């Protein structure tokens, strides 16, 4: 009941949508009724179009994000851990950080074509920087007293990296990954809208060009829901991973 009250405005918006379309307040090609959208969503599931393209999209996002997390974490902690690495990498990070990552879409297409490779490369390049910065800021802020006591108890550098630096870098690192997760969806959808032969973004563009707007709305809402669900799921995971901390940020 409380849940219903909280999300009532969304329900009202949905009802308003249905009414506006049914009463022809707006042209039904611009805004098909929500019930039609749901019907075409079920059709898209039945024909397998939606599931297949969702699979293709999620594969790209997951691969790109995974690469970005692994390499970004290594680079970020390396930058915090060793001064030469920092001096070498921080100018490059500083140059690439402000680049609007969507500008890379045509270049990745030139390098790797229209398929999976170009999207994975794009997501990897776009998402790596927030992960690197998160890992760097986190690792750099590990408390000196912890580092000193670990050292006085005879931990070698590698042990310290694993037992002290990495755990204390975790909160900021996880925040950086959350930014990267959001970014990966943006880059995935935009690159698929612009050039692709499969994937959710492609499906949206294809259905829109065919004029099947109710199906297009169905896919748009699916993408929006997937992004939302991914963020919520990640947040739950993050809270679990940070449970050992006295207070989660």
């Amino acid at each position, binding site marked *: 009941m409380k849940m219903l009250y909280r999300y009532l405005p969304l329900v009202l918006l949905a009802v308003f949508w249905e009414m506006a379309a049914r009463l022809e307040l707006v042209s039904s090609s611009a805004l098909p009724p929500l019930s039609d959208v749901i019907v075409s969503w079920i059709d898209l599931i039945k024909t397998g179009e939606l599931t297949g393209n969702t699979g293709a999209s999620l594969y790209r996002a997951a691969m790109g994000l995974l690469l970005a997390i692994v390499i970004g974490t290594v680079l970020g902690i390396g*930058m915090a851990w060793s001064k030469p690495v920092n001096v070498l990498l921080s*100018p490059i990070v500083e140059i690439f950080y402000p680049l*609007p990552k969507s500008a890379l879409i*045509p270049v990745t297409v030139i390098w790797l074509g229209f398929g999976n490779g170009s999207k994975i490369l794009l997501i990897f390049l776009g998402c790596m920087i927030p992960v690197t*910065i998160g890992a760097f800021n986190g690792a750099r802020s590990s408390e000196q007293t912890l580092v000193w006591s670990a050292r006085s108890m005879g931990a070698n550098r590698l042990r310290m990296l694993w037992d002290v630096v990495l755990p204390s870098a975790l909160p900021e690192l996880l925040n950086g990954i959350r930014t990267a997760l959001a970014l990966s969806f*943006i880059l995935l959808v935009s690159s698929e809208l612009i050039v692709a032969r499969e994937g959710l973004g492609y499906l949206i563009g294809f259905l829109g060009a065919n004029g099947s707007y109710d199906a297009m709305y169905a896919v*748009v809402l699916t993408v929006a829901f997937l992004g939302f669900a991914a963020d919520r799921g990640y947040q739950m995971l993050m809270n679990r991973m940070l449970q050992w901390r006295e207070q989660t940020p």
Partner: protein
Amino acid sequence: MARTDAVTADHTLDAPAPSLARTVLWGFARVFSIVVLIVAWEGLARSGQFTPFVLPSLSSVIERIWADAISGDLAINTGLTVYRAMVGFLISMVGGILIGAAMSRNVIANWFFDPIVSVGFPMPKIAFLPVVILWLGVYDVSKITIIVIDAIFPVIAATLIAIRGVERELIWSARNMGASDRELMWQIVLPAALPQILTGLQVALPLSMIVAVVAEMLMGGYGLGGAMMTASRFADSRGVFAGIVEIAIVGYVLIKAMAILRRRLLIWHQEANEPTSA
């Protein structure tokens, strides 16, 4: 999104008064990797390992940018992209702060917007781009609209958290001294909330640029993103790489300007003396 000032700000603090030779050496080390990157790009492009389609040499890309600058295309495209991104950003800023402030003060506004923000913020709103095109066409209105849809959420969220986090004592003392609602908002709450609001704006700004470029790529026409897409359709990879360099410079300038503005506006805040993190 984290700010990169942190990456460089700290090192001068831990080194006790370095000698001149060391300063010069570190200064050189700082640009070293960028020089290596530039030399590697030019060298690889000239080595013949890659076709000019895959990797045009940096010098030919710079020539291309120069040619665009002389013909006036560069100014038109850059101007249009920056115009769209900035109008979208400014609307998001004003709208986001207004909605956030309204949510923090008014129960009904909070009831209505809270689920919309909590569901809408994590969504990839760029997926609504085709819907926006369907409604508003392919011109500036729809480009700016999609920018606002994407960039307004971080501003609302930051404003809301910031205003809720203002210390009660500040508000009580102001009230005690007879501040009216309006005075309270303008003289106490907003300044105290400013650091976090600015952080939200610093997320919204790069987002505006990302979305502006995507919208231009998808809808075509003038603008840096549109020009890149045209170049890409004609397999003109020098044009594509020129576009990246141009967009990178625009993004760099905007973000640096925002960081400077933040330092200016928060000169009174203790953060001005600390190295920033996160």
